[in-house]
């Protein structure tokens, strides 16, 4: 517990599909995309209910479930499930589950099966959280795969033009 408190300068939201989003504490009401910072506002009014205001657009949000550190959130009609982890609990979890590899490395995986269209980074280059690292074409749509952290690209496993399966490793990033 004491350890948790010391380390709670950062929190991670881990999606059910193993995507990881990290946020610094105290939690800012803004998210940095590339070099720009965008406001995030959680609001409610009589007519619309609860919503998030982001880049001048309102998105309906609802909390479907919350249990300990697990949250199911309905965002713009789509449900997402996250577990919130501290750096300590995340590390412990990674040691317990993954075993191999440094706990500090972020593994960016393919969220769905598809074809790698482009790699936007090189080994050794630095990335910002939210920056696109890979373009993956799935369902005939191009999807940007974003870096979950600020860090340095340590390894690129994806190759342009190749097909990947869901959860295939694309890029490793050292925060």
């Amino acid at each position, binding site marked *: 517990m004491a350890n948790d408190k010391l380390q709670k300068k950062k929190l991670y*939201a881990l999606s059910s599909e193993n995507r990881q989003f990290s946020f610094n504490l105290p939690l800012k009401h803004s998210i940095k995309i590339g070099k720009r910072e965008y406001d995030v506002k959680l609001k*409610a009014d009589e007519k619309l209910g*609860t919503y998030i205001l982001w880049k001048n657009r309102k998105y309906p949000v609802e*909390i479907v479930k919350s249990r300990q550190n697990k949250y199911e959130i309905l*965002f713009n*009609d789509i449900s997402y499930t996250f577990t*919130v982890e501290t750096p300590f609990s995340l590390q412990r979890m990674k040691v317990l589950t993954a075993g191999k590899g440094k706990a500090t490395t972020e593994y960016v995986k393919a969220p769905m099966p598809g074809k790698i269209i482009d790699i936007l980074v090189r080994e050794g280059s630095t990335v910002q959280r939210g920056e696109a690292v890979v373009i993956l074409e799935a369902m005939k749509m191009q999807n940007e795969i974003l870096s979950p952290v600020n860090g340095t690209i340590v390894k690129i496993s994806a190759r342009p033009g190749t097909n990947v399966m869901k959860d295939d490793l694309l890029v490793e990033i050292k925060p």
Partner: protein
Amino acid sequence: MKIKRILIANRGEIAIRIMKTARLMKIETVAVKTAAEPNAMYLSYADFIFDNTEDNSEVPVFLDIEKLIAIALQMEANAVHPGYGFLAENAYFAQKCIDNKIIFIGPSPDAIYKMGNKTIARNLALKNKIPMAMGSQGNIANEEEAVKMAEKIGYPVIIKAASGGGGRGMRIVRKQDEMEKMFSIASKEAEKSFNDPSVFIEKYIENPKHIEFQILGDTKGNVIHLGERECSIQRKHQKLLEEAPSSALDDKLRKKMGSMAIQIAKAVNYYSAGTVEFLLDSEKNFYFMEMNTRIQVEHPVTEEITGIDLIEQQIRIANGEALKFRQEDIKLTGWAIECRINAEDVQAGFAPDPGKIESLSMPTDACVRVDTGVQRGSSIVPSYDSMIAKLIVKGKDRKDALKNTKMALDKVWIKGTKTTLPFFRMLVRHPKFQNGNFTTAFIEKDLEKFYYNSEYEEMLAAWLAIKLFVEENLSDDSISVDYKNGKELNPWLLNKRISQF
């Protein structure tokens, strides 16, 4: 006008749709209040309400012929509109209305019966030389017989196990020289799987599109068509999106299919609004499937491109009036798309998600029409269908209609249940849908993901999860309040639906 007061033997959006037109025609309406949804929105559109909330019958009132007749008589309604579903295609109900001197707003009981009976309908189509997917009447004994039959119905054909199911024992044969081999494989597989080697042959329709023609006929023998609707976007035979016209038809094919549709309708002396359904294959061959003898859910797309109020026509025809327009008067202008926004969870295989509509806001743009039976506070109840609203969007051509639909979908705001909105947001961005190159197998074959989210949505959801966690666990984190544009709130107070465990 003979018709003075119409009993609406239906609920939801179609009840409202009918009552809106009745009001324009200065005809009174009666709606039935049920225990399942005593506060339903459609009740507020009626001139009179019959309170049926005390009815303890197992059968829903909208399926109870005797009860509906009694209500019509008691409420002095001299006409009944069945809407769609329920008793809309029940010949006995139509006859019962007539027997009680109540005008049934729909076709004759005879037409309903004949088109509802697959064998009669097929025989009628055969007699009228309407193209149909043919099949062998019984089992096929050997290869020679198979070749003969396939020649008669035309390749490609499909060999099916007589005792079969689930794809086993099925073989598609495209050319005569494949027949011998395929027949023996199918027969052996059938024997192995079902202990029965007997097989039969049917026409195989490759990657078909679902194309249906809107028909209008009067009691004087005039029948016209109002063009087609394309309803290929369907899942397990449930239509999700319909459009009119179809990108697969040109004027020549439209004329050909339209005249076939009229012909089959005339074969049963059809009057009122009806729909003739066809399958259209990639070679533009079409095959009669069935005729629906009612107003359809997707009728608005036809109304939007023809400017004709189909409910008004149904009422006028039932009133004994002749059609005011001929085939050559019908002009198809622009393009219309209908999205069926249902209370369904697309992430859980379109499972129904009934619940209370906590907030609802629909686009008000000129190109958008919304047909709905719910408002804020309404409930989508498990006893009826999951429809929340039909979003009907118009454009000057298909591209324009698609653009407008994309815009409109982003303006729809529904809270309280999950909806099919994310599915449509994905669909309008899909190249295959955009170029019109899709078939009834589209959802099954071409989609890997059933919903669309823009690139930052998951990150924002993650931010909210973190915020919730912070509020609960690290209470010293301060909350800023923005009073200007709606209050910024403590997320722990925001949701009443947090589960109890």
